[in-house]
C-alpha cells in the first residue's frame, strides 16, 4: 500500500480501540446506494520506477532547441540554489504559517519578499502574492473599485495593449460584480495607448486606468503622462509591470507626479521556470493608504511575549476566513513556494545582477533587428521596446512559425491570434539566455522558413 504505513497488526489494534470489526464499518453512515463502483478511468498503480520512466519519456518528447516566445512568460536563467533550497522539505511541505511560532522560516521570508517587491516597484506595501499575473490584474481592478471612494461608476479603462489573456481573465473574474471594463485602443504607429482616444473620457467618472509597462507588444507606454492624466480624472492608476524590467525602468511608484496607486504583475520572471505556464505568482503592491483594501495575505513584523521580534500574518480581518461573505477576496492559498523561490532568486541576483539581466534582454532582443532586416522583417511599431519586439513579416505568421518549429526553434508569438488585423505580426523575445550564435541561428531558421 504505497504511502500507507499500516501493518495488519496496526489495523486490528486500531479497529479494536475504535470498537468496530472492519474498516468498512467506519463508512456505515454513507447510504449504500451511493457507494462507488469500480473506477474505470484510473489505471492500475505504477511503482515509482515505472512512473519515473514514463515521465522521463514524456518530458523528453516536448524538447525544443531554442525558444523565442515571451508573451507573458519569459525564459531566464534560474540559479541552481533557488529551487534546491525552495524544495527543502521544511519549505516544500509546510502549510500556510497559521502557527507563527512554528513558521518563522516562511514568515520571515515572505516579509523579505514584500520588502523586495516594494523596492522594485517603488511602492509602500506588498502582499504575500496572488495566483498569477492575470488574476492579480483582476484583483487589482476589484481593489481599485473598493479603494477609489471618489468614483461611483465602477468603470475601469483597459487599454488594448494589455495582454489579451489578462483582459479575458479580468473579465471572467469581475464579471459578476457589475464592473465595466472599457477598452482603450492603441496607436498603430507607435504601438502605445492612443492619447487621442483617452481624451474622449476626460471629465467622466473613471475608477481606474490600467497601464501596462512594457505593454503586450513589448512597447513602453508613456507611463508618466498616463498617470498624470488618470489622476487628473480622479481615477486610480493600476500598473501592470514586468518585474525584471524594473531593474532598468522607472518604478511605478514614481510614475508622473504622484505615482501609481496599485501595481501588479506576473512574478514568473523572478525565478519560476516556464513550466507550461505555472505555477507562477502574481504580485501586488500599493500605497500605504490602500493596504486594508488589498487582497491576499500580508506578513508583518511584531514583538513576542519575550520582547523579541518575529513575524506573523497580519490584517487578517480582510480575509475570507474571518469576514466570510464580506471579505475583500475569496483568496485563500497564495503561491508560497514560488515566492520562496523568487525571494531567493532576487537575493542572489541583487540589484546589479538583475540590472545586467534586464540589460542583456534588451540588448539581445534589439540585436535581432539588424539580423532580420535583410529578410524584410522589421519592427512594426515606432515605440521604444524593452525585451520584446513585434516584427512585421512579409507574409502570414503561422506557417512561418510552424516551419521554424520543425527546425527546433520556437520563433515567437503570433499576434494575429489576438488582434485579427495583425496577422503578419510576430512578437519575439530574446532574453539574456540567448547567445550571439542563437541569434544567428534564429535569423537563419527564419530565412529558411520565409524562403
Amino acid at each position, binding site marked *: 500500500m504505497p504511502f500507507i504505513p*499500516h501493518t495488519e497488526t496496526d489495523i486490528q489494534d486500531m479497529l479494536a480501540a475504535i470498537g468496530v470489526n472492519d474498516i468498512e464499518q467506519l463508512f456505515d453512515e454513507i447510504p449504500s446506494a451511493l457507494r462507488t463502483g469500480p473506477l474505470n478511468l484510473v489505471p492500475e498503480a505504477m511503482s515509482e520506477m515505472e512512473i519515473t520512466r514514463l515521465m522521463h519519456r514524456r518530458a523528453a518528447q516536448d524538447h525544443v532547441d531554442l525558444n523565442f516566445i515571451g508573451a507573458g512568460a519569459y525564459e531566464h536563467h534560474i540559479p541552481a540554489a533557488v529551487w534546491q533550497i525552495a524544495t527543502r522539505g521544511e519549505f516544500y511541505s509546510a502549510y500556510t504559517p497559521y502557527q507563527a511560532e512554528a513558521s518563522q522560516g516562511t514568515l520571515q521570508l515572505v516579509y523579505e519578499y514584500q520588502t523586495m517587491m516594494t523596492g522594485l516597484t517603488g511602492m509602500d506595501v506588498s502582499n504575500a502574492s496572488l495566483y498569477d499575473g492575470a488574476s492579480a490584474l483582476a484583483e487589482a481592478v476589484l481593489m481599485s473599485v473598493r479603494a477609489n471612494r471618489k468614483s461611483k461608476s465602477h468603470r475601469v479603462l483597459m487599454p488594448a495593449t494589455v495582454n489579451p489573456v489578462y483582459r479575458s481573465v479580468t473579465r471572467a473574474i469581475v464579471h459578476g460584480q457589475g464592473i465595466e471594463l472599457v477598452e482603450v485602443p492603441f496607436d498603430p504607429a507607435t504601438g502605445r495607448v492612443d492619447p487621442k482616444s483617452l481624451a474622449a473620457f476626460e471629465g467622466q467618472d473613471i475608477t481606474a486606468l490600467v497601464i501596462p509597462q512594457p505593454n503586450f507588444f513589448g512597447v513602453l507606454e508613456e507611463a508618466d503622462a498616463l498617470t498624470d492624466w488618470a489622476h487628473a480624472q480622479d481615477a486610480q492608476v493600476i500598473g501592470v509591470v514586468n518585474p525584471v524590467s524594473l531593474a532598468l525602468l522607472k518604478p511605478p511608484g514614481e510614475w508622473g507626479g504622484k505615482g501609481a496607486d496599485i501595481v501588479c504583475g506576473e512574478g514568473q520572471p523572478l525565478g519560476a521556470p516556464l513550466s507550461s505556464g505555472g505555477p507562477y505568482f502574481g504580485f501586488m503592491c500599493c500605497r500605504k493608504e490602500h493596504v486594508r483594501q488589498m487582497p491576499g495575505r500580508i506578513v508583518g513584523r511584531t514583538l513576542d511575549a519575550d520582547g523579541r521580534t518575529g513575524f506573523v500574518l497580519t490584517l487578517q480581518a480582510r480575509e475570507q476566513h474571518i469576514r466570510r461573505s464580506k471579505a475583500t477576496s475569496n483568496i485563500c492559498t497564495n503561491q508560497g513556494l514560488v515566492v520562496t523561490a523568487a525571494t531567493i532568486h532576487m537575493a542572489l541576483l541583487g540589484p546589479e545582477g538583475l540590472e545586467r539581466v534586464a540589460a542583456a534582454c534588451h540588448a539581445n532582443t534589439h540585436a535581432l533587428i539588424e539580423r532580420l532586416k535583410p529578410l524584410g522583417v522589421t519592427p512594426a511599431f515606432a515605440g521604444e521596446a524593452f525585451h520584446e519586439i513585434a516584427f512585421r513579416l512579409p507574409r502570414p505568421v503561422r506557417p512561418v512559425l510552424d516551419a521554424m518549429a520543425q527546425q527546433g526553434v520556437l520563433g515567437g508569438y503570433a499576434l494575429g491570434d489576438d488582434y485579427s488585423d495583425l496577422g503578419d505580426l510576430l512578437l519575439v523575445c530574446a532574453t539574456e539566455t540567448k547567445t550571439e550564435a542563437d541569434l544567428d541561428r534564429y535569423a537563419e531558421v527564419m530565412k529558411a522558413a520565409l524562403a
Partner: protein
Amino acid sequence: MLIFERSRPGRGATAQAPLREATVSGLPERFRRGTRAPLPELSELDVVRHYTRLSQKNFSIDTQFYPLGSCTMKYNPRACNSLAMLPGFLGRHPHAPDTHSQGFLACMFELQEMLRDVTGMKGGVSLTPMAGAQGEFAGVAMIRAYHDARKDTARTEILVPDAAHGTNPATATMCGYTVKEIPTDDSGDVDMEALKAALGPHTAGIMLTNPSTLGVFERRIKEIADLVHQAGGLLYYDGANLNAILGKVRPGDMGFDVIHMNLHKTFSTPHGGGGPGAGAVGVSERLRPFMPIPVVAKEGERYRFMTEKDLPQSIGRLSAFAGNAGVLLRAYVYMRMLGRAGMPRVAEFSTLNANYVMARLREKGFELAFPGRRATHEFIVTLKRLAKDTEVTAMDVAKRLLDFNYHAPTTYFPLLVPECLLIEPTETESKETLDGFVEAMAEILEEARTSPDKVKGAPYTQPNRRFDEVRAARELDVAWRPGAALDEVAEQGRTD
C-alpha cells in the same frame, strides 16, 4: 537577522548574472530608473546560508506530524517533485505549439480523466483553476452562467451552511450572489426544515462540503440534492474534504452538479508554506458548456487545448495560461502511483486514523463535538469545559503541542463549535505517531489541570513565544526600511 541587514554595497553572487554588462541604447531617460533597485547585495554563500537556516525554523510534514484539520497534510511523495521538475517539463513554454507539447498534454488529459472518474462528474474536468478558492469561483460562476443561459435571472441567492469554509460565502459574493446561511442541527447535519424554508425561486444553488467541516458525513445528501434540484437550483461541492471519501462515494453520484477539488489536499501536491495549490473543477453534463478554458481534448492519438472556439459558452479563462501546470504534474504522478486500488485506500486509512485518534482521545478524557457520530477523515474536540474550568483555551493547547514537536490541529474552525480543535491525521501517518500525539494531548490535559499557567505560556521551544498580533496590525511593519522602528528592538532581541 534579515537578509537586508546582511547586505553590503557592492557585494554580489556574480556567477548568477551575465558576466559582461550589455549596453542599453535607445532607451530614453524618462523611461529609466534613477537609482538602483534596493535589493539586498550578498554573496551566493550568504544567501544559501540565510535561507537554509530560515527553513529550519519551519514545522513541515517532512519534519513533524501536522494534524491540521481541513488541510489534509499528508506525505508529499518526493518523486512527484522530481518528476514534475524534469528539464523537459520546466522548459516548455506555455505557448509552445501542440507539436512540441504532446508529452505534457498527455499527462493533463489523463489527469482530467482520472479526476472525472473519482468524482463521478461525467461532464468533464477543467484543470485551470489555480487554487481551491478559484475552483469555487469557477463552480459558482458556472452555476450563474447556466441560469443566465436559460435566462433564469431571478435566481440571486446561494445557500451556504453555517459550518462552511469562509471561502464559500466570499465566493458567492464575488459572483454577485446574496448568501443565505443554513443552520446545522445537533448531530452536525444540515437542518432540513431550515433548508426547505430557504429554497425557492430565488435559489441559484447551494454550496456544500460532504463530509462537512464538522467532520461528519451528511447522511441525507440525496434528499438535499433532490430538494435543491426541484427548486431549480444547482449543487456545488466543495472538495476540501474529498480525501475522506475518495473511491468510496462520488459527488457526482450524490447529485452534485459541480465540484472543485483541492489537488494540494487529496492528491498530495505540496502546500509549500501557503501554495501553489490547484483547484480543478468537475461538472455534470449540463454544466459542460460552461467549463473554464483551456481543457485538453484527445483527438485520435493527438492532444490539444480546447479554447473559446470549442467552448463558446465557457465562463472564460482564470489564469494567463493553463493553471498551475507543475502542480498538476505532481498530482498526476501521485495518482498514477496510487492507482485504481489506491484511491479507496486513501479514504479508508484516513478514516481509520481519524476514528482511532478520536477513540483514544475520548478515552483520555477529551470531549468530542459530535460524540454520536463516526469521524470521517477528521473530527472535532471541544475544550469548552476545560476553558471554563481552567482558563486554558484551545489556542493554549495548540501552542503547547508545538513543544511536543507536533504541529497544532486547526483551532477555532468551524466557528460554530466553541473552543474547538479540528484534528485530521491523514492516512500517511503511522499508529506510533498517532499514539505519540495522543499521549502528548493527554499530558497537556493533565498540565492544564495541574499547572495551567505553563500551558498558557507555551510554546517554550520555538524561536519565538506568542506574538503581539494587535501591535502587528496597528503599528503596521510590512516592509523593512533602514532604521525602521522595530530595528532597535530587533537588535536587542536577536536570537540568531
